């Protein structure tokens, strides 16, 4: 358990007074578990009257505007404003910009630390209800969000629906409104059609998190990727990730390889990397690129071998085999020959180049098994970091004063 708050750099809303920060620069104050007596600040293990022995008392609250709360006590402090300035939803990466992305990464640092504790749980969102509304099946992403929500002590409801039932039974709107009527503070929405999270945000009064909408966006995946890249570079440079700002991404040469056209991860990735100043190259056959790249600062190549020597991060996209083979590319074999990160190609990678993939992998298609399992591959780190990042997102949106 960490000790009490230490004065340090505040991360969060500018102008808010510093109330304390840990050694790594994350400001936090003791956050009282809602509805319970105030807890003593800085007393590891000191639980509020109602807090269960399993939950740790501390929770990070960067940007907390509690000028009044001294570092020693939280007084009768209710949940404090997180100072989150980027809206009550997370729908698109472009809602965040470089600053918003970095704020979330700093928040995620704190929750990554929570994740390393014997009891990886904080009461920050206790009493809040979060629903995962997944119309497209994705066990991994859903579990990642649910884990994040539970680690914040929120109550979690799960709603999954086979894609085919949407529009045939209860309408999308009725589903959202019915769930909301049960009393939810946030909905995490995934759907195979673009725009559904925006529509849901118009129908109900709750925070909406886009967990993937059709070909359009997947902001939390990309935030996790940015977190992973920063972590990697920190490690390589022998520094603490928390000390690294957006400069870590500037000029970083990233190749996004594969079916960009159908990839929500690619769209969010380009938006994030453009905002952070990275150097993005799309590597695809023309049939797998959007008809217009207007607004994207990217280079394009149709030849992976051409660009390979000049790339720091290879971000491989899953080939949608159900759709791609025979249609957008003549065959999987041809795709792998031209765009797959085969073992042969991997041999010629420069020493520091790394490989990322949003998962699930098509081993032997876009990525050779040996490459997927090599030390260059950050895939498992991407997955692990997903929980911390999602905790950061949920906390940023919900950690403030209850309405």
């Amino acid at each position, binding site marked *: 358990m960490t000790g009490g708050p230490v004065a340090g750099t505040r991360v969060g809303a500018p102008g808010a007074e510093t109330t304390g920060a840990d050694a790594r620069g994350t400001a936090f104050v003791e956050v009282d578990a809602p509805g319970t007596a105030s807890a003593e600040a800085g007393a590891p293990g000191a639980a509020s009257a109602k807090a269960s022995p399993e939950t740790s008392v501390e929770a990070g609250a960067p940007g907390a505007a509690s000028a009044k709360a001294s570092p020693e006590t939280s007084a009768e402090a209710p949940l404090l404003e997180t100072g989150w300035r980027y809206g009550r939803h997370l729908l698109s990466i472009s809602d965040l910009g470089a600053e918003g992305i970095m704020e979330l990464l700093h928040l995620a640092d704190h929750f990554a630390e929570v994740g390393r504790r014997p009891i990886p749980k904080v009461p920050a969102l206790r009493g809040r209800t979060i629903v995962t509304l997944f119309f497209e099946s994705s066990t991994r992403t859903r579990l990642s969000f649910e884990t994040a929500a539970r680690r914040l002590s929120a109550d979690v409801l799960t709603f999954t629906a086979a894609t085919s039932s949407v529009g045939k039974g209860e309408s999308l709107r009725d589903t959202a409104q019915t769930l909301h009527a049960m009393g939810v503070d946030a909905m995490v929405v995934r759907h195979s059609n673009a725009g559904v999270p925006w529509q849901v945000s118009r129908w109900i009064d709750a925070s909406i998190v886009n967990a993937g909408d059709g070909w359009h966006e997947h902001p939390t995946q990309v935030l996790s990727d940015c977190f992973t890249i920063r972590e990697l570079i920190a490690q390589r440079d022998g520094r603490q990730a928390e000390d690294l700002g957006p400069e870590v991404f500037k000029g970083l040469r990233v190749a996004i390889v594969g079916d960009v056209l159908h990839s*929500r991860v690619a769209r969010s990735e380009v938006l994030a990397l453009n905002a952070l100043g990275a150097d993005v190259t799309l590597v695809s056959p023309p049939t797998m690129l959007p008809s217009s790249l*207007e607004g994207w600062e990217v280079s394009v190549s149709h030849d992976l071998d051409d660009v390979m020597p000049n790339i720091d991060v290879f971000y491989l996209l899953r080939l949608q085999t159900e759709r791609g083979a025979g249609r957008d590319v003549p065959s999987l074999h041809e795709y792998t020959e031209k765009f797959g990160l085969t073992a042969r190609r991997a041999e010629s990678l420069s020493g520091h180049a790394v490989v990322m993939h949003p998962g699930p992998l098509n081993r032997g298609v876009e990525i050779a098994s040996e490459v997927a399992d090599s030390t260059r591959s950050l895939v498992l780190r991407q997955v692990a970091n997903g929980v911390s990042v999602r905790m950061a997102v949920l906390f940023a949106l919900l950690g403030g004063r209850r309405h």
Partner: protein
Amino acid sequence: MEGESRWSGVTDPHPFDIVIRGGTVVDATGERRADVAVSGGSVVAVEPSIDAPAGAQVLDADGCWVAPGLVDIHAHLRQPGGEESESVETGARAAALGGYTAVVAMPNTDPPIDSPSIVAEVLALGSKAICRVDVAGTATVGRRGERLAPMAEMARLGVRMFTDDGAAVADSGVLRRALEYARGLGVTIAEHCEDPALVEGGHMNEGAWSSRLGIPGRPAAAEEILVARDIELARLTGGRLHLLHLSTSRSIALLAAARREGLAVTGEVTPHHLSLTDESLAGFDAAFKVFPPLRTADDVAALRAACVDGIVDAIATDHAPHSAEAKDAPIEQAPPGMIGLETAFPVALEALSAEGLAPARLIALMSWRPARIAGISTEIGGDQGGPVAPGSPANLCVLDATANWVVEPAKLASRSRNTPFAGCTLTGRARHTIFRGEPVVVDGEAMR
């Protein structure tokens, strides 16, 4: 008796005495300040000042245009089969409120209008409506694009236009024969030009916005390819071709070339394609989803110019009612289409007044030129399109081009609410509509 309806029955209309006072008459001969008197279903006088006889209904047209009733050659009235979203009666009421005295009902109903019995059914429903309802028949049986529909049998009941609208006739051989056969009957084949293979799976214009929004696109080329193909077949066959809802600048160029060549090809544009772009879909509101899709600002500019230059013959609404539930769906699942009869005039007016279009030119696009295409023009023995002169059939609209009003979907006469202009303040409205001598809309209210 002033203001009291003397309507006594469908088959025996009682003549009205109406004086439309204080307006500016706008018709094919131009514009002039004049009062208009109507009696027994006809215009009887057009003079600078007309005294209303005792018992005559006086309709105030101060500041308004008095024009031949508008004619919409492309409206989906959903009967038979789609009555939950519209009926002939409610669609006709919406039309009359929009200043229309005639609409042509599209045949992509359920069952489709591909036989004389269904034509008769819809005409019967239309006979009670407060505007003229003509019927378009399908070009092929069941709209399946394989066998020619019984055009002659339907033509005997007055059908003048045949279309598989909703889709193109994909097989060029079938379309060729349809055009040839139509030529023999003196009727028109109308086409929804979008190549099915190129638009498959697409839900909005393919371009910068579809790429940004991750929504599968429908390329402009899909429309242009079929426009070009259809024009070639019109040239080959000599048949009369009408191109529905053109939406791209290149389509306009193709139409212009066909007109220069003297081919029997006409084209229409919708008010929404004259005013909205694909950027409208950025909020993921399916109210803006339509086929062919809303395009780019350049396309909108080209369509407007084509209206001004006379390359386009008609503004047609493509009024397409859908239930609120259907339109609440994700963009990729929602049905395409927007209602438009009640908003067409102000939207078209705003879109084209920036181009400095004279009122008579705008009304030409919305009244007598579409009437000609539909075969119901006074020029060929029909009763639509004017001129506003003694002896003409009294199908008139009184349009206030300066009236501001807010579009409240729940207050529209259409059974459906799917208008992209919901909540918008529009300028321009039909104040009165006179259908066959009967004032069916007075002061913006439908009389029945």
